């Protein structure tokens, strides 16, 4: 009976397969088309436009299609640009180091010292509470805290610890770094927490069994296994800081510069080709940094 049933099924399957094969060639393309279109239209095309425009000529009023390298020679030949790039990289390095340090310990505390998963989730959500408001608001809310007559200064003066308000709390590089660390630490906590949660707890016991002290366990087992998370967090933080202009502008009170801020200024002066050249240089720099991180740490295990 099964034989009788199978025969027509096979006969029917043959033309169906042929028909499917003609559709089959197209199907994967159709399936990937929506994402390809979105990425093409909103990512690839703008980047191509920026690259194209970066070679154009411009004056105070308009842009002229052309193929000039002067925009790049202006960017790379200017002492101010180099200084701005160095400043941005300096911010990235300081913020990276601080967020990595704070982020690791927060994640470590959540993953290893909170016993119940429910409590872990609650505390993790508490970490995300600041994200319920926008970046700008979180940044601006530092002003009443750090300002000349802000919370900290008035408290210190009131207690008589300082004779007059501390000037460098707000509108300084300190303020920029503080705000950035505040904004971006969660981007470090999340991936590190994720990797730490995946560490088999018996590895810690095995290390203890082998005579490792608490610090030795941390250094020889937990940190090496947390590296992929640290790398992902690093990519988040570095790319965010390298592209930041609002934090630098608001928190430094215009006293500090970043590459993105420089681009913003060029655009407000209608120097689009110059800004585009700057953007291309920044993009290449950031991609090189990400490539460097990926070379050092294998993050495939996490994806």
């Amino acid at each position: 009976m099964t034989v009788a049933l199978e025969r027509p099924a096979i006969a029917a399957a043959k033309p169906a397969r042929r028909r499917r094969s003609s559709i089959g060639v197209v199907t994967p393309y159709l399936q990937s088309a929506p994402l390809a279109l979105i990425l093409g239209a909103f990512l690839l095309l703008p980047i191509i436009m920026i690259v194209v425009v970066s070679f154009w000529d411009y004056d105070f009023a308009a842009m002229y299609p052309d193929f000039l390298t002067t925009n790049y020679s202006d960017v790379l030949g200017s002492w101010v640009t180099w200084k701005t790039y160095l400043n941005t990289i300096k911010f990235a390095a300081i913020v990276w180091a601080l967020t990595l340090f704070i982020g690791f310990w927060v994640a470590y505390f959540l993953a290893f010292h909170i016993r119940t998963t429910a409590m872990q989730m609650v505390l993790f959500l508490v970490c995300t509470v600041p994200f319920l408001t926008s970046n700008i608001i979180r940044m601006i809310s530092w002003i009443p805290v750090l300002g000349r007559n802000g919370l900290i200064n008035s408290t210190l003066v009131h207690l008589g610890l300082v004779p007059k308000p501390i000037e460098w709390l707000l509108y300084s590089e300190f303020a920029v770094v503080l705000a950035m660390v505040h904004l971006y630490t969660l981007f470090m906590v999340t991936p590190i927490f994720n990797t730490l949660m995946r560490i088999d707890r018996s590895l810690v016991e095995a290390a203890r069994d082998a005579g490792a002290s608490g610090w030795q366990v941390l250094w020889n087992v937990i940190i090496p296994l947390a590296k992929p998370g640290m790398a992902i967090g690093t990519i988040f933080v570095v790319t965010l800081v390298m592209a930041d202009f609002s934090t630098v502008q608001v928190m430094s009170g215009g006293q500090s510069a970043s590459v993105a801020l420089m681009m913003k200024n060029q655009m407000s002066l209608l120097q689009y080709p110059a800004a585009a050249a700057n953007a291309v240089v920044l993009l290449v720099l950031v991609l090189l940094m990400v490539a460097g991180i990926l070379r050092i740490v294998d993050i495939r295990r996490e994806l």
Partner: protein
Amino acid sequence: MSKAAEIDIVSVSKVYGTTTAVEDISLKIPAGTYCCLLGPSGCGKTSTLRMIAGHESISSGDVRLGNTVVTDLPPAKRGTAMMFQSYALFPHLDLIDNVAFSLKMKGVDKEQRRAKALDMLKLMQMEAYATRRPAQLSGGQQQRVALARALITDPEALLLDEPLSALDPFLKVRMRVELKKLQTSLGITFVHVTHSQEEAMALADLIVVMNDGRIEQAAPPRDVFERPATAFVARFMGDHNVISGRVTGARDGMVVFDVIGGGSLAARGHGREPGAPIDIAIRTDHVRIGDAPALGLGFTGIVSNIEYRGATVKLSVTGAGIDDFTVIINDSDFFARPVAIGDAVPLAWDSQDAIVLGHLHS
């Protein structure tokens, strides 16, 4: 390397909150013994092992290893080494660094510790894989590396937490042989947690059967199998029929008891008060079809199932008050006088085969 230590567990308890995982157990494991902690999951065998290892604090009682009380010592100071259930090899280190880990923690310099780790891998015939990562190994190979890592600390006792449970059946039997060989050649004490009575019988010099956080019986495998101390042991070890009843009296040095809802049976044992509950165990392969040699050493039941097993035939028999009585008889005996399902057969056993089981004080 062979400096085995005796392990002495003195009225040790482990309490988690309101639940007691291990209740006041005492056990002496002689030096150089292969000891198996056997029991169903949740019986406290792993907690006991982890308390010996120092990975679990001891709520009350003491553990002594050799001449030292190790109750409050950290794991590495006890002279024990533990092999974890999933082996817990460090995924980011190659085999040499995995094995050399404890030496690194002690601050042994790199050349020396790598040389010693390589020797250890050679002992386990794993030197060809020395530069691989654990993920690139099979289960059996991972186990060898885990053994090498545990043994490099030169322990007096090796503690193994269900070491064979992650392996497929074929490998299980092979690694079992290797474990036994290793224990014999090293001469150190092995404490092995398992829920497989077959594994325990094959490996152990001393089987400790645990249930509900207590030790039901601690004895050599043959004793445990031939003279199970309690109904739990008889049932857990298998190949035993357990019959429960109430004592009615004594006759010719035998205890006579009534099976609830059934007939009267007898077993050799001390006089007990009439009315007291009693359990007896009868080996399934010591039962024969035939008339009882004396009163109370057999019953008649209906055959409910027959399974042919090659060398033996397994009969399931239902009698009055006895639900599922298993009889294993030789194939030649069976086919000389075959019975069919539904037949009423007389079953009998000798007086020394009915073992009166004890109870744990609760």
